[in-house]
């Protein structure tokens, strides 16, 4: 007898993660949880950092297979620094995103990794790009990814406002990550957040016990 699945909550195949990036007035916040799990049964790391710096003002979040994502980012970092030397200027955020997209698209059969790229450059200010599993590249103002993201689509739709202040955006990102970690069993640990503005880069780590608490049934 076949079992029917009434909940279609898995969009694509992603291993346990919640990642998020959002633009505010003057900068961008990018963040993630810190749990790495194997098969949804075993937490192999409670404090892994999924927010990787690829250049001075450009950060990436990885989703999907962490092994694939780490390999792609390593290659992308090299390409990007080479490109930056050739252009004799810091790379644009879209350049970083395009490098990742090329790698994901050309190797789509072997890879299972998606990325959020967020950063600031002089030409276009704060930007957020999404490179999906198959290699699609789009620009958005706020974006979420990973298995935990399904649970916070409603929250993000309701609470994100364009041109928030930095503090509002940080609170929004922390809340969203906390909510996702509360519902998704393969997301958890601490919340890693990075704030990127013209002036520089600021890391914020919110440990599990300091995360906002919501109504818990």
């Amino acid at each position: 007898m076949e079992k029917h699945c009434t909940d279609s909550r898995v969009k694509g195949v992603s291993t346990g993660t919640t990642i998020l990036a959002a633009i505010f007035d003057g900068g961008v916040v990018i963040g993630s949880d810190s749990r790495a799990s194997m098969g949804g049964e075993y937490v192999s790391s409670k404090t892994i950092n999924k927010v990787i710096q690829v250049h001075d003002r450009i950060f990436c979040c990885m989703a999907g297979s962490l092994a694939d994502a780490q390999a792609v980012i390593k290659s992308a970092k090299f390409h990007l620094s080479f490109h930056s030397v050739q252009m004799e200027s810091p790379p644009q955020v879209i350049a970083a995103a395009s490098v990742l997209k090329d790698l994901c698209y050309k190797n789509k059969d072997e890879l299972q990794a998606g990325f959020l790229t967020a950063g600031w450059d002089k030409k276009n200010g704060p930007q957020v790009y999404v490179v999906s599993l198959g290699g699609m590249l789009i620009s958005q103002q706020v974006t979420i990814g990973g298995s935990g993201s399904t649970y916070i689509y409603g929250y993000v739709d309701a609470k994100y406002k364009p041109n928030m202040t930095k503090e509002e955006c940080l609170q929004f990102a922390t809340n969203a990550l906390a909510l996702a970690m509360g519902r998704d069993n393969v997301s958890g640990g601490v919340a890693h957040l990075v704030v990127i503005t013209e002036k520089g880069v600021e890391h914020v780590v919110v440990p599990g016990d300091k995360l906002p608490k919501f109504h818990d049934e």
Partner: protein
Amino acid sequence: NVKEFCGSAVRGIINVETVVNRVMNKLSPLHDKIYCALSGSAADAQTIAEIVNYQLDVHSIEVGEDPQVRSAATLVRNISYKYREELSAHLIVAGWDRRNGGQVFATMKGLLTRQPFAVGGSGSSYVYGFVDAEYCRGMNKQECQQFVVNTLSLAMNRDGSSGGVAYIVTIDEHGTEEKVILGNQLPTFFDQ
């Protein structure tokens, strides 16, 4: 999805567009002040609701007064559990009785649990974060209705299988009120 607030239960359900039926009311009355919300296989869910409606009538005559919400939920749970391998429907039971006021029960796959609020169906995954953040105990009727409408609207926006109109039923000690909110009257949120 269903919420409890001081004194009553407000439940809303999203209408699903299927090839067979574009307008389906998924709020099914089990008794005057007890409703259930259907999700999953429509045939399974409707059948359970009809059977429980009958059983509840018999029970309420035997007892001689209006049935408790917990009784209705237990009847639903008994069927869900007995046939859990064959059925694929989730019914959320909510209502008002004199003994415990407004109550919400979830009965997925044979589990019976009372909750302050419950969400279910394919669109529910997208709004877990929102309801966790926004629900607070002690909301009044208007706040709760607004909360339900907002939640439904957000879920309908994201879920491909949800859409159309929103049905809301509000049950309290004074009676039962049914409301339909058309798609273009639902609140809108950030859309990029």
